């Protein structure tokens, strides 16, 4: 399977490309006042309003560096009622892909309660890459608010 590799600070992370809709450059986002800091803003993706989560803010308590290699990864997130939404994830140094097989994935042997999105590990020549479980990447509150509208419509 193909993994998209990116960095949050000095650590490298990977995300399975099957979840990815598209990678877009880090463009100017509309800020949401009083929103949590990890919500970088919203933007118009081909007629759809997409919220953007700053993963650096979420994991490192600092915003992503303003570089060309800092990009927005559009993923499809499923809600509890079967509905799904497109969410942007901003991360640093999103320039590489990596081809791995299932056997290359190693369990970390430790689970962090506050970070349920951390998945298995991949070893390569440059060190360890942590896989991200995209279905747990969003905080619960955010997930609820994202799917509230859908729920109301339902």
């Amino acid at each position, binding site marked *: *399977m*193909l993994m998209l590799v990116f960095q949050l600070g000095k650590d490298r992370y990977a995300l399975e*490309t099957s979840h990815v809709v598209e*990678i*877009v*450059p880090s463009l100017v986002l509309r800020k949401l006042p009083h929103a949590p800091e990890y919500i970088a803003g919203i933007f118009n993706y081909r007629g759809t309003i997409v919220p953007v989560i700053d993963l650096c803010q979420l994991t490192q308590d600092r915003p992503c560096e303003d570089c*060309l290699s800092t*990009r927005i990864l559009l993923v499809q997130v499923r809600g509890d009622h079967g509905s799904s939404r497109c969410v942007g994830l901003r991360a640093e140094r999103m*320039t590489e*892909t990596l081809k791995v097989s299932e056997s290359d994935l190693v369990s970390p042997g430790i689970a962090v309660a506050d970070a349920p999105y951390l998945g298995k590990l991949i070893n390569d020549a440059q060190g360890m890459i942590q896989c991200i479980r995209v279905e747990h990447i969003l905080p619960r509150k955010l997930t609820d608010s994202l799917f509230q509208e859908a729920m109301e419509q339902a």
Partner: protein
Amino acid sequence: MRLMLKHKILGMACIAALLPAVVMLLLARMQQSRISSTVRDDLNGLVHANIKQLALDVYHSCEVTNEFIRHQVGDNLKVAEKVLKDAGPLRLSADKTVWHVVDQYTGSSGSVNLSKMTLGGKWIGHNNRMSVSTPVVDEVQSLVGGVCTIFQKMNEGGDMLRVATNVQTTENMRAVGTYLPAVHSDGTPDPVISVVSRGETFLGRAYVVNEWHICAYRPILDGNGHLVGMLFVGIPVGRIASLREAIMSVKVGDSGHVFVMGGEDKSKARLLIPLEGYRDGDNLWETKDLEGKFFIQSIIHKALTLKNDGVDFERFLWKQKGNNAPAMVTAAIAYYEPWDWIIVANAYEGEFHEARDKLESSLRGLFWWSVVTMIAATGVALVIAFFLTGKITAPIGKITAVAQQIALGDLKTATQSVVSAGASGNVAAGNSGAALPNQDETGQLLQAIRTMTQNLNSLVGQVKQSSIQLVSTSTEIAAAAKQQSATVNDFGASTNEVVTATREISATAQELLNTMNDATQMAGTTASLAGSGRSGLADMEANMRQLVDATRSISGKLAVISDKANNIYSVVTTITKVADETNLLSLNAAIEAEKAGESGLGFSVVAREIRRLADQTAVATLDIEQIVKEMRTAVSAGVMEMDKYAEEVRRNVSEVGRISEQLETIIGQVQALTPRFESVNRGMHMQAEGAQQISKAMAGLSDAARQTADSLREFNKATELLNEAARGLRNEVSRFNVSD
């Protein structure tokens, strides 16, 4: 022993209750005996008067009766004469009859032969039986009562024989045959016969057969005028029923009587009107009383010496009727001589003493009732006194306790006690304004004590506070005084220091004066040096201006280099963006290829290749970017350095100009200094003099400070004394425990 108030009051009440009672008892006792003796005397007198009056009454009754009977006898005589006349002529017949005659006094008898006395020609006969009637005499008796007798002259001597009579002998027979002797055995002529012999009528008292009568005798004459007999009518004195009953019914006291006995001759001591237990005619001559006294003889003896209605008394002991107990009897004796009656009215003294005994017993009763009343009154008085004492002493006791508490100084407890004393019993007041239920003196006293306690309480409290304030104030004063003292000492020291300092100032001023002279000279030298400095500076200014121009040309060239570097940087940036977008494109392509599965494999290889090229481009551009950045930095630094340098040069030029001006100013000022130094010199002189004056003044001030310090020490001592006094006062007052 110390008596409590309670006991005193109780004792007083007891004495008040007992004293009048005891006095009353004593008086009653004394009065009792006196009354008793007085009553005894009075009663005795009363008894005497009473029985005397009785005796006299009987005496006067006798007189009246005597008079009355005398009249009646006179009348009776007339009736008898009439009856005799009617019966027919009284004749002495020639026939003789033998009479057995008896002397009525001596009893000597004999027989005599006398002519028969006829009445109307009929012989009277010898009728001595009462059942057979005798003419004339019985008729008279039936007409007028009393007794009637016809006497016949027995002999020449004049003895008169009863031939017809209804006078009875002791044997209840007609007393015919008894005669009245003309001469008594003692030789005295019979008063009746002697009167009748003279042809007169006798009216008076006579002893007939065996008792005294009031009677009348009239001579009976024959045709020749010779005395042949006499007609007699009489009423026996002792049988005058009304008088007798009157006398016998008289009672003196309960059992006292009046009795009458004869006084002389045959009837001496013979009862005429009898006592109980005796009969008529009993001779009492030998009678003795219970002491063995012949009291009857004494009575008769006394009676016979009395005149008219005189009364004498006799006392004797006699047994009392009913119980036969010996009792004293008092008798009043009167003697009615016409009848030879000794009238004795006697009374048992004891009966009259009954009243006295009753009086005495009632007095005794009164006495004992007084005793009982006294005891009861004392008891009641004690109870009341006890109750009242409680009422009086309880508040006083409380007040005493309160007073002791006040004396001990425990005003707090005292106030509480006063309040509670008010609450219990009669004072139920938490506040002073509440009315007391008991407004007597103790209540008022309690009120006063309460007011006093409250006043004392507040007074002592105020004194306490005042003393505390006084102590603190005096302490403060002492502290202040000490502080002031220290201050004054400091002041003295300061003054000394000032003096010293002033002296130093004086010396320094002198030195300064010398220094000023030197300074004046130095100023002159400085002015000349400044002049030479100003010319050197003018040359330096010209050099500076050339340097400024050179710097400006270097700056322009550096700006050109900077512009070029910026151009290179923008090109590099464009290349970088392209490489970046290429990389992005290749990533998306790789993702899409992955999604396409097997069909996208070739495309993914292309995408990877593109990304590799893009990465190489990016690395190359990064190197260029680095070089350009360094160059730009270097140029910028050079420009900045040049700018700084140019600025420095400009500043130096203006600085040189300014220094030149300042030097000019300094020269002018130094030249102007010299006259000023002179004036300073004069001022210094004056300052030195002034300092000396200050020094003198300070010495004076120091003395004053010392004196002040002494005064303050004394003041300090006085304050300590005050403090001690205040503390003593507070100790005294603290003895009082004041309520809050």
